[in-house]
């Protein structure tokens, strides 16, 4: 469960990597230090072995009685450069110079043991630990092939003692060693220090990493909290992303703008539904009051007829509204299929004008057309609907003896259709909103059959053709302009 969390996985991973690096670094540092110490010790031992060897390798020519160090004055060794007599057993004489090197009271007391070819000890320093020879004998076996290498010492650790031993060609063996406990102690301390240091680094690394991971992942928690609230229905939620530079900040910004659009769309949808319900309330009220009044007492036939007629008008109004709503819903869902056939827009417009002609005559409004034949691809039936809708609107807002101009021309690869009336025009604050659903310039619903959805439907149809629709007003009448692409 805990490993499913990114936070913990990240922490685990770099924790492991950090430990590996620290262990590697610590071991190397320890090994380096250990090597350095041992090299220094070995070098010193080596030096002493060489000096001891020199003593052994310089036997006098004449028969000299073997003497132990310190038993008499040091004999003279006239170096005549003659060949060494290897058959004669070498003598061992400890010079004071040499003795100083093996001072048991020195800070780093070295010891030595010299063993003759017969296996007996020829000499040893006073501070040499007992029982060395046994181990040496085994080495001799192992080092059997090493006679040719007189000064290739064999290094060995025995407890706290560092010992180097060497077989001379003459089969004598020299061993020099030292108790290196102080050095071992120092190394242990170093190891301890390294471990502590590594621990501190690991702690700092993990703490810092934890902080960083938490800080980095906090926006994710906020994002998921906000998203959860939004999915629970609270669309006003936003992610508070102070740090907009980071990748998560950018993600938060993108999500916020998405949430914003979602909220707007949702609010629009809600408004639309509320408006639709609102539009249905009035005809339902008519039906309810009409029927309740009629049923309150006995009526004559004319009374009932009146009621039924009023109910029919209300029902018709609801039907128109429902049809418009469904049409818009289909446009919104992209289900409304537009034909893409070439047709003469001028003919379509003329058709539309023909259709509204009776209404215009009834209202005493003249329709003047200036139509340039123009082929465009699209759905001629739908565009007829747009034209009749615009004309019906214009007729409604044009006083008796007014006129409506319908102009169709091509410009810049666009078919431009203008419908202008000589009515009272549209107020500037209404111009932008006339294509909004249920928006009416006058807040009443007296406009016969005016559902407030006519212009929005026109807009949907025109936009489905890739065109635009605009309203303009000069004060003396309004003009609706359609722009439709000629080559789509």
């Amino acid at each position, binding site marked *: 469960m805990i490993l499913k969390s990114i936070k913990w996985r990240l922490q685990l991973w770099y924790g492991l990597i950090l430990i590996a690096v620290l262990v590697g670094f610590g071991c190397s540092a320890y090994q380096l230090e250990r090597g350095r110490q041992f090299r220094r010790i070995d070098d010193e031992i080596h030096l002493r072995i060489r000096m001891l060897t020199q003593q052994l390798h310089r036997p006098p020519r004449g028969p000299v009685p073997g003497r132990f160090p310190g038993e008499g004055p040091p004999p003279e060794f006239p170096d005549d450069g003659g060949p060494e007599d290897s058959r004669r057993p070498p003598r061992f004489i400890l010079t004071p110079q040499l003795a100083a090197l093996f001072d048991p009271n020195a800070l780093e007391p070295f010891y030595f043991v010299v063993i003759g070819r017969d296996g007996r000890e020829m000499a040893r320093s006073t501070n040499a630990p007992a029982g060395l020879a046994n181990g040496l004998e085994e080495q001799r076996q192992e080092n059997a092939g090493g006679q040719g290498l007189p000064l290739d010492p064999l290094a060995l650790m025995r407890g706290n003692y560092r010992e180097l031993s060497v077989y001379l060609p003459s089969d004598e063996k020299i061993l020099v060693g030292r108790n290196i406990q102080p050095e071992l102690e120092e190394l242990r301390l170093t190891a301890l220090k390294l471990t502590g240091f590594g621990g501190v680094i690991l702690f700092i690394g993990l703490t810092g990493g934890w902080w960083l991971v938490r800080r980095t992942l906090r926006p994710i928690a906020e994002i998921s909290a906000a998203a959860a609230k939004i999915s629970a229905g609270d669309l006003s939620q936003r992610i508070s992303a102070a740090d907009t530079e980071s990748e998560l900040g950018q993600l938060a910004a993108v999500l916020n703008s998405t949430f914003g659009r979602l909220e707007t769309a949702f609010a629009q949808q809600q408004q639309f539904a509320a408006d639709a319900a*609102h539009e249905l*309330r009035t005809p339902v009220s008519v039906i309810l*009051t009409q029927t309740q*009044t009629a049923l309150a007492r006995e009526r004559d036939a004319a009374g009932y007829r009146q009621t039924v007629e*009023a109910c029919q008008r209300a029902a018709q109004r609801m039907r128109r509204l429902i049809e418009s709503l469904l049409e818009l819903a289909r446009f919104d869902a992209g289900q409304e299929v537009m034909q893409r056939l070439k047709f003469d827009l001028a003919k379509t417009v003329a058709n539309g004008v023909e259709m509204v002609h009776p209404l215009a005559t009834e209202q005493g409004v003249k329709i003047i057309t200036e139509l340039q034949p123009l082929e465009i691809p699209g759905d001629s039936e739908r565009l007829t609907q747009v034209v009749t809708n615009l004309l019906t609107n214009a007729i409604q807002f044009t006083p008796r003896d007014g006129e409506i101009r319908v102009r169709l021309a091509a410009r810049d690869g666009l078919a431009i259709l203008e419908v202008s009336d000589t009515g009272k025009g549209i107020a500037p604050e209404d111009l932008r909103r006339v294509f909004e659903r249920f928006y009416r310039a006058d807040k009443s*619903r*007296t406009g016969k059959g005016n559902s407030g959805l006519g212009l929005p439907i026109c807009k949907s149809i025109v936009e489905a053709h890739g065109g635009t629709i605009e309203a303009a007003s000069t004060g003396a009448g309004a003009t609706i302009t359609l722009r439709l692409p000629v080559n789509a």
Partner: protein
Amino acid sequence: MRILIVEDEPDLLASLAQALREEGYAVDTADNGEDGLFNAEGTDYDALVLDVMLPGLDGWELLRRLRKTKKTPVLMLTARDQTRDRVRGLDTGADDYVVKPFDLEEVFARLRALIRRCANQTTNVIEVGDARIDTATRNVSRKGQPVELTAREYSLVEFLALHRGEVVTRSQLYEHLFDENESSLSNLLDVHVSNVRKKLGPDFIVTRRGHGYGIG
């Protein structure tokens, strides 16, 4: 009781007016805000039924302007049922609220309540002497016996009962019992007064010569 209805939907206006007339109210109508305000300012209606969405002058504006001169109880009719709309209506000076679509029964009850409240009456039943007037059921009884009254007679009794202890002038009675289409020059009022006296006793309505009528 005289009521003004301001509503722009003709079918709704017609049926509301008819229903209220059949309930015994004198009803005037207006189908736009300007006419509605003009009527409401010129006449002392017992109540106003006001639609919010009106051409010309909307319901809010009409109410705001009317409140400068009149305290007429106002029942708002609206298609908007959101709380903020209701709060706005009540804050602007509306006395009550009915959301479309409504039941006529509810409109009647709310109007009765408005008129009653306006006359500082807390219950539906008013007792005057040995007569008992139930404004909810529009029944009048005397000494426990129900008395049959015509709608106009009942309105006369109710109006006087709601203003008992006061002198009610003839013009007041004409203004509240007859709508704008009925002639106030007729002697209809005298006929109604005399009929009520026949049914509820000669002393039920007292004539204050030169001033008007009163009961109680």
